[in-house]
């Protein structure tokens, strides 16, 4: 989780303890849900039933610091107690070690609203499942610094992985960039249920092992190739170590790709934004009938974000009471969980220092059904001044009220649940 975000969100629920994080540009979200069985003792909430369960977030580095040296922990610690002290605003992690030594770490936490990515693996058209080893071996052929990779279903049932090269002139393989492509046969996978010819492009970094990463400076820094050296456990390494098969769910370009790991006591989800591909041939209907062919590269975060918001809002529009993600049934208990306004509030927390520039992208939601994709965006040309970081891709409202932009958008979102666009 530390490889993705700087803050660790802890959410105790009835079905387990959920640890989540999101990256600064909101293009990657991960969660680990530990079932109560995983723990020796698990008490989720306060004594009053129906009381809202406390959620908090702590600084990732502080939390990691408690568990700094795994080998020595394994040797000395026989019990670890984690408890939340709301009144003292402290998350207490207590390590009971050998020889009667108890180390107590008090971490300051901030209460927060739910960090919930909007995605639905059931709605993904394609899925693949393979032992993590296969994917780890595949990924090794791509350079460590590689940002984006395209996963595709090719002819003959083969699955391909290809590094993504931004092509300005529209021709792949521009001089200067080496293109690497790997083909895996269908039978290397445990299950393959893909739409032929489908492709998605996502950022490889959060996924693999990358031991030499440069530390990111602040929550505000966009995802960049120079990220600080984090604990080198990418999801892939984790999967390999736990010997679990990895399932990849994806849909159309632009819709997020979801990687999941499942076992009896643990459910892991990693949701990554994908590039909307104007060449994919699946040109979605656009607002005002205008056909836009935005170039994927620079503004892909923007595209995805609007798209995701549209998707989410349209989901609400349909009045589907089904929570967006079947594996995270834990929205706030109120029945109006699909109420976008509530989502909005929840998201306020996330948007510390939201860039006021984000609004224009949200506005574009009107008139779109779920197939917004990139094409639908009546987007002004990517504004270089808008830092992509505060683009929430899977979240509801991203904007703090009070900034000039949000107002119109909030209105739009509010209309969703009743109206048509």
């Amino acid at each position, binding site marked *: 989780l530390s490889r993705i975000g700087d803050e660790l969100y802890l959410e105790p629920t009835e079905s387990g303890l959920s640890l989540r994080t999101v990256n600064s540009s909101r293009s990657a979200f991960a969660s680990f849900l530990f079932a109560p069985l995983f723990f020796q003792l698990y008490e989720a909430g306060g004594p009053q039933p129906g009381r809202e369960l406390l959620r908090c977030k702590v600084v990732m580095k502080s939390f990691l610091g408690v568990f700094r040296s795994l080998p020595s922990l394994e040797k000395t610690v026989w019990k670890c107690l984690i408890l939340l002290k709301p009144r003292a605003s402290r998350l207490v992690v207590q390590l009971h070690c050998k020889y009667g030594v108890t180390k107590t770490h008090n971490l300051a936490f901030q209460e927060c609203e739910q960090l919930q990515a909007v995605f639905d693996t059931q709605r993904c058209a394609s899925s693949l499942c393979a032992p993590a080893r296969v994917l780890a071996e*595949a990924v*090794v*052929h791509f*350079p460590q610094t590689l940002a984006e990779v395209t996963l595709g279903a090719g002819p003959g049932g083969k699955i391909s992985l290809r590094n993504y090269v931004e092509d300005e002139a529209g*021709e*792949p*393989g*521009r*001089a*200067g*960039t*080496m*293109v*690497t*492509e*790997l*083909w*895996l*046969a*269908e*039978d*290397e996978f445990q299950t393959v249920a893909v739409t032929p010819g489908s492709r998605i492009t996502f950022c490889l970094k959060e996924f693999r092992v990358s031991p030499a990463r440069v530390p990111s400076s602040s929550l505000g820094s966009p995802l960049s190739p120079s990220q600080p050296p984090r604990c080198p456990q990418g999801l892939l390494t984790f999967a390999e170590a736990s010997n679990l098969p990895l399932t990849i769910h994806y849909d159309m370009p632009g819709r997020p790709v979801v990687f999941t790991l499942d076992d009896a006591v643990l459910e892991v989800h990693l949701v990554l934004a994908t590039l909307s591909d104007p060449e994919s041939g699946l040109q979605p209907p656009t607002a005002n009938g205008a056909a836009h062919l935005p170039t994927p590269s620079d503004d892909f975060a923007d595209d995805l974000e609007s798209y995701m918001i549209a998707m989410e809002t349209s989901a609400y529009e349909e009045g589907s009471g089904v929570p967006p993600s079947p594996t995270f049934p834990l929205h706030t208990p109120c029945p109006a969980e699909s109420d976008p306004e509530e989502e909005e509030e929840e998201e306020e927390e996330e948007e510390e220092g939201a860039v006021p520039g984000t609004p224009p992208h949200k506005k574009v939601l009107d008139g779109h059904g779920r197939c917004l994709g990139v094409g639908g965006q009546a987007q002004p040309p990517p504004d270089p001044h808008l830092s992509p970081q505060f683009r929430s891709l899977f979240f509801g409202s991203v904007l703090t009220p009070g900034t000039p932009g949000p107002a119109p958008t909030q209105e739009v979102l509010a209309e969703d649940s009743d109206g048509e666009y």
Partner: protein
Amino acid sequence: MRFRAKIVDLACLNHFSRVINTIAKLAKTCTLRLTVSKLYFILADKVANGGVSLWCELCQENFFDEFQMEGVAAEHNEIYLELVPENLSRALKTAQSAKAVKIKLTNKHCPCLRVAVELPSISSSSRIVTHDIPVGVIPRRLWNDFREPSVPDFDVSIYLPVLKTMKSVVERMKNLSNSIVIEANLSGEMNLKIETDLVSVTTHFKDLGNPPWALEDGCQSSAQDRDLESMAEARIDIKKLQQLLAGQQVNPTKALCNIVSKRIVHFILLHEDVSLQYFIPALA
């Protein structure tokens, strides 16, 4: 213009990878010259390179199981390509357990050297990884820029000390100074010297031996009449020397250098099937 080659033997692949790794350490971009029997990696001595030049020659038979080449024209049955050796090095890096590696010159959207690695896999069909390395085709009119450099009229020729030792000495010296003086004489003695305001360090090597150069008319006469004890020296950029030494992954069969006093140092590293020549000019 066509080129296809295939390596099936792992040892050959390994060896080839090592050569490429060495080249990659010495040059960011270089020229690959393909002939029917040989491959050459060439770096011409342009100002941009800092005046260094590189000439590396391999016999293709020693590496490739299949090698087919058709040059630009019948009378000029050669191909000159400009490429980034680091790309090739990366492509081969993860191919160390490959069943086969095929290299082919293609021109889909732009000229590329396509390296296709066939990897063993548990499934019925093997995994194939292809790397498309963009290359530039060098037109015939520029081929003259890439002629084999001639051995300079050197003052002293001497075998190098054990490269590993030399490398560690030079690496430490690199921290202290930007330039290093190599001096040697015909009695098998070589000194590596650095001198700064604060410190000067000299490492002495002796009993290195001087290679006997075959006498040709008029050649090596300057070396011939030389006083055996007198040192020929050149001050060169220490980083370039360090790069050369660091890039050597295997001990060469023969390693020697020719020094033209105050002008240039010519290094020759010979392995069984690869020869590498590297020229470092003296600093002003």
